[in-house]
């Protein structure tokens, strides 16, 4: 014989179980929505960008004929997040490569997969902020579309480094990956195993001036 108290307890526990199940299902749906938004990525970023303020950025566009970088100002809507800012700025640079009258032609739709920032490694006795290392994850499509040669490959790297350093001055060093992996060269020549000094390797003297790759 089941007592009345036990019946009430059973139904109360059943009610709690149903409530918890409903709560978990709701949590799962919310997590799925978040994952879906991250997977879409670009549209979400575009929406974020559209909501952000306009800012003038400087792109350093390479010229294959005279081995120079030309400063080009462009107004872009930049998101608040620095990683997203770097992606938007470099996406605009790759768009300049793709332009019909490009001086550094490259037929690539999507060039930058991601940009991460790390503090520059310092010794124990070092004082002050040494800036950041930008880890630029290039797409395999960009590496495949990159014309092979010391000059064109070096110009691509220099233009990315100069553009990052000009718009995000804390970036002092740049390391390149391709499809998230370390790679020996960009397209058979420029070394991607080392970390480049962004501030020193690109001394820019002004719009339209020659930038020595020194």
């Amino acid at each position: 014989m089941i007592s009345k108290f036990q019946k009430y307890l059973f139904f109360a526990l059943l009610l709690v179980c149903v409530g918890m199940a409903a709560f978990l299902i709701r949590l799962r749906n919310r997590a799925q929505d978040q994952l879906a938004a991250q997977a879409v990525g670009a549209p979400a970023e575009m929406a974020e960008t559209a909501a952000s303020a306009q800012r003038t950025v400087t792109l350093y566009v390479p010229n294959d004929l005279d081995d120079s970088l030309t400063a080009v100002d462009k107004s872009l809507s930049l998101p608040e997040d620095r990683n997203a800012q770097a992606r938007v700025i470099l996406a605009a640079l790759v768009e300049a490569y793709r332009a019909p009258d490009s001086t550094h032609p490259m037929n690539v739709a999507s060039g930058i997969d991601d940009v991460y920032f790390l503090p520059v490694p310092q010794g124990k006795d070092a004082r002050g902020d040494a800036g950041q290392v930008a880890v630029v994850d290039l797409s395999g499509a960009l590496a495949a579309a990159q014309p092979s040669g010391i000059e064109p490959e070096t110009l691509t790297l220099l233009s990315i480094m100069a553009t990052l350093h000009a718009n995000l001055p804390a970036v002092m060093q740049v390391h390149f990956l391709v499809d998230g992996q370390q790679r020996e060269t960009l397209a058979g020549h420029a070394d991607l195993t080392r970390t480049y000094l962004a501030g020193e390797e690109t001394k820019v003297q002004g719009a339209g001036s020659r930038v020595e790759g020194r």
Partner: protein
Amino acid sequence: MRWIEVASALAFAVIAAEAQQAPPPVQQLPQGPAVPALPAPVGPPGVQPPRFLVVIDAAHGGSDIGARIESGVPEKDVTLGLAGRLRSTLRARGVDVVMTRTADVNPATVNRAETANHAQASACLTIHATATGSGVHLFTSSLTAAANDRFPPWATAQAAYVTQSMKLESEIDTALAHAAIPVTLGKASVAPMDAVACPEVAVELAPLVGGHVTSAKALTDVSYQKTVVDAVAAALEQWRSDWKP
């Protein structure tokens, strides 16, 4: 038993005398893995002057074809052809030349650097070609110049030669300018340049784009290549006259 003591003393005396005359025993060193021989030390000036020698590295080769040049010609063939012409021209001018490759093979970058370092060359050239740009692109290492170290790190051996490399680059730039070939100068990080312990310049040949003073020429144009090779050889001859070992 007296005679036994006398015989023992005589035997010891004979053994001691032989030991004094015999050469000391030779200690056999264990045989380790084959180690490349170190370069011979350079003698003092006046005794045996070091010879002026140029190392030419034809980039790529074998399965590494490099860039695709006009009409699908692989870069590895252009670099080997150019390196061969430069070697012939330099030898005709009395300059000793060592090549890192003379056939369609791809020596490892470490072996290319080792060839240059063991030769103790006075100048090292890495030959490249590209379909992009115009004229000749000259590159030196992007390493920061450093003082000459007796035992420099292999990966940055070029650091001690950066200043000399830029002087050599300047000589080649001047010679190419005299030949009306457009030149661009730059710094680059390209294997095996950073590991080479001699004045090193990467010479990258591009097609000649027509301009005010130049007419368009394909990269594979023989007369264009000859003009470039003659100019580089003249620069190396000038480098030899300025060279101080």
